[in-house]
């Protein structure tokens, strides 16, 4: 792995983890209400 490859991989992983973390943080802090019509 070159330095650039490490940076490339780290950036992509960080973005994915950040978006996933953000989504679940918002979902869990809003509540977990049931669905259904």
């Amino acid at each position: 792995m070159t330095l650039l490859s490490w940076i490339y991989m780290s950036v992509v992983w960080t973005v994915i983890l950040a978006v996933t973390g953000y989504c679940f943080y918002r979902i869990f802090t809003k509540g977990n209400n049931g669905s259904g019509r």
Partner: protein
Amino acid sequence: MSHRVHREGWATRFGLIMAMAGNAVGLGNFLRFPGKAMPYGGAFMVPYLLALCLLGIPLMWMEWTIGRHGGGYGHGSTPGMFDKLWRRRISKYIGIFGILLPAMVGIYYIYIESWALGYAWNTIAGTYWGKTSHGEMAEVFGKYLGIGSGPVTFSAEAYFFFLIAFCLNAVIMSLSISKGIEVVAKYAMPALFILGIILAGRVLTLPSIEGRSVTDGLAQIWRVDDWSVLLSSKVWIAATGQIFFTLSVGLGMVHSYASYLKKREDITLSGLAAVSTNEFVEVILGSTIAIPAAVLFFGVIQTKEIVAGGTFAIGFHALPVIFQQMPAGQFFGTCWFILLFLAGLTSSMAMFTPLLLFLEDELRIPRKKAAVGISVVVFILMQPVVLFMQHGVMDELDYWMGDFFLVVFGALEAVVFAWLFGMDRGWKEMHLGADLQVPGVFYYIMKYVTPVYAVVLVVWSAQDSVLDKLLMKGVAPENVPYLWLARAMILGMTAFLAWGIWHAWRSHPKFFEDTTLPGELP
């Protein structure tokens, strides 16, 4: 008044997101993705990430929106949903794809899923222990499936595990959404994350072998040696096709799950959560397990040969060899195959939902009866896949249903949503009750870029291989009848669905003419 107004929905939002993510996370995350990425190196990730942002995420939001919108009118499958989006006679027939594709993929997918279950058992029992070369494990795999010189591919062991996987899927399908799919997803998905993290942690901490380290394997996916591969349409087709496959967009399953949502229940944040969860499993866990482990034990050249040998070679031939050379290998090997099985199960249990809801909503068949009927028919259709596998029945179904028409349906729905339903209405509908305001740039992406990109991909894919596949170029003459059998299965199912639509719209036209707005049903 819709007859489905009082139908139950998702019990919890967490359950919904786990079910949606489970629908997306499948065998492809751990086997197909590394196999597609490795031949191109880090350059593959450029079209992959572009397709994720320009096609995958927008299509996911579109499908959630179409599903919730159609569900409000009492439609749980795409014929009824498309009929409500675009009031033309043809629109409900376009929706056939959203039932046909997942059902036909499910017919072979459950069999593949059962291999993982069988191999989990064989790893616990240690039956293949001592077969320490890739070639020997390839023989073990062939024997497990019963591939021989005769016309029929059969082994009692593979068939036994196939029956278990099939029955499990049939039972889940027969239960209500909150007691079946949701319960399984709520337990299976966290278990899958834990197993994936355990395996990724184990691989990343393996010591070097003969000067090779796991980072040499990571480099096969992340190091860019040659940017010029981006000039070839092949890498774009492979990367974009992978986005469709991994997110399960263009299939009709997301629509059906979303049809259980209430009118003002969020879809933007939940949809993005499902996508990012899938990407976590695919890009982070999927790229960390199979290829780095294989490169460490076999070296780059042999790993490339293994990957070129097909999607399953790395998972079922190479990794079992590696587990045998690893401390506590039986434990990690079992984790690997259970991981694959859970990934498969959480996807396959969604595949017959559109057909089930079509029978329930449009043909008014009670759920239990519909589930039994589907199980019987699907079991019969699975027999050629299982018994004639070596003649290419599964590959034929996979190409047309899981490869080509999936992209065609994705392109059609992007055009219907953005241009025929109208992007302004679509954008408003998508943001009803939204917990996340989607950036305005996505309005233009969804209106212009996504439909054009999807149509270009259809044209590329057609130019790349459709004619050769259609004319069966390179197919051994003795296999030709079996491929026609696969095509007859596709055409038979299509004819049944077309008849079903014609019959349903003719039998109770008032239901389909219902102009009550979603959410306003009494």
